[in-house]
């Protein structure tokens, strides 16, 4: 089914999968850079990434928040493989949580850490896109029957 004025659910699923995969890449890079005792490398010689990585806000319960990011993006990727209400609602809630937390982290960067990490901004942008995609998917297709296997190209 294609709701009038909205992209097909299949298109949305593909977009969610693509953006979530990018998010996994970004979060994995940040986590790997941190695990080696270093920090992500900002472009143009900015020290923002190192400042943010060394701040006390970069870890929750001793775990780098990028690890939580990897898990979140992976779960979002998984929701893109199913066309049912559980995946639509689950994807929306995950993206909502990720988007909300990204807003909070951006606030911390600007007002508390006083430094901007370009990789964190990239992740926040990706999470914002995922929130928009998942909200569109839920609003457009909630309540419709499961009809296609995930990411199955339809004729």
């Amino acid at each position: 089914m294609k709701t009038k004025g909205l992209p097909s659910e299949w298109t949305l699923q593909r977009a969610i999968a693509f953006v979530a995969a990018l998010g996994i890449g970004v979060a994995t890079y940040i986590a790997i850079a941190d695990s080696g005792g270093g920090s992500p490398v900002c472009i143009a010689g900015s020290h923002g990434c190192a400042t943010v990585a060394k701040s006390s806000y970069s870890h929750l319960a001793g775990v780098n928040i990028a690890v939580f990011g990897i898990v979140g993006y992976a779960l979002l990727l998984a929701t893109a493989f199913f066309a049912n209400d559980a995946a639509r609602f689950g994807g929306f809630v995950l993206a909502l949580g990720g988007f909300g937390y990204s807003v909070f982290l951006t606030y911390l960067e600007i007002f508390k850490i006083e430094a901007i990490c370009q990789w964190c901004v990239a992740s926040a942008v990706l999470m914002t896109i995922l929130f928009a995609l998942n909200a569109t998917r839920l609003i457009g297709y909630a309540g419709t029957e499961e009809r296609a296997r995930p990411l199955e190209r339809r004729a």
Partner: protein
Amino acid sequence: MSAEPERRQRLLQMAAGAAFLALAMVLVLIIVNSSGSGGDPEHIEGKAGVDRLLAAIPQQGMVLGDPKAPVTLIEFGDLQCPVCAGYAREILPPIIENPVKKGEVKLEFRNFTIIGEESVPAGAAALAAGEQGRGWHYIELFYRNQAAERSGYVTDEFMEAVAIAAGVENLGKWNQDRRRRTDEVEKTTEAAKQLGFSGTPTFLVNGPGTKGLEPLGTPESTGALEEAIEAAR
């Protein structure tokens, strides 16, 4: 393919509830974090701003700026003093960014502990950081992370967290030095009292245009400090 209106409506209602909850949680997190309770060794704030402010300015002990600068501005302060913290945030940065950075003025911090007993170890910790060239980083970060006066936040853990954020590299030496230098804090406090000072921050200026050290009291603005510096040139 048939939509199920009831299920759809329930899902959208749940989504709206989740969005409302998420918005509330983000607002609560921001409000809690913006309350600026300070004194938290787990969250030392303002490091990037302090690093930017003091970048490329030489430090020797508690003197910030070119040691050969013709004008010397001396601040008698107490690290627990909220007015001193306000000075550090609002009034002194333009002085540091211009005449100090240009090598025209050097800024010296001396302890004048009037708030409470905890100000003595705090001041000694700053002197110890000064031995490793990070005294002004320590002062600035301490001010930016102050909690309420005499609230017990000046613990070893807090002072060490500030030292780490300030870039003190040899913490073992810093720990030894800070215990050794409490006498010096008491000496400068006594000297301030001898000069008749009663509050913090109190400033003195010295330069070719002054007759020795001239007390400035507590200038109310950056402009007032700049005028005093200009007169001392």
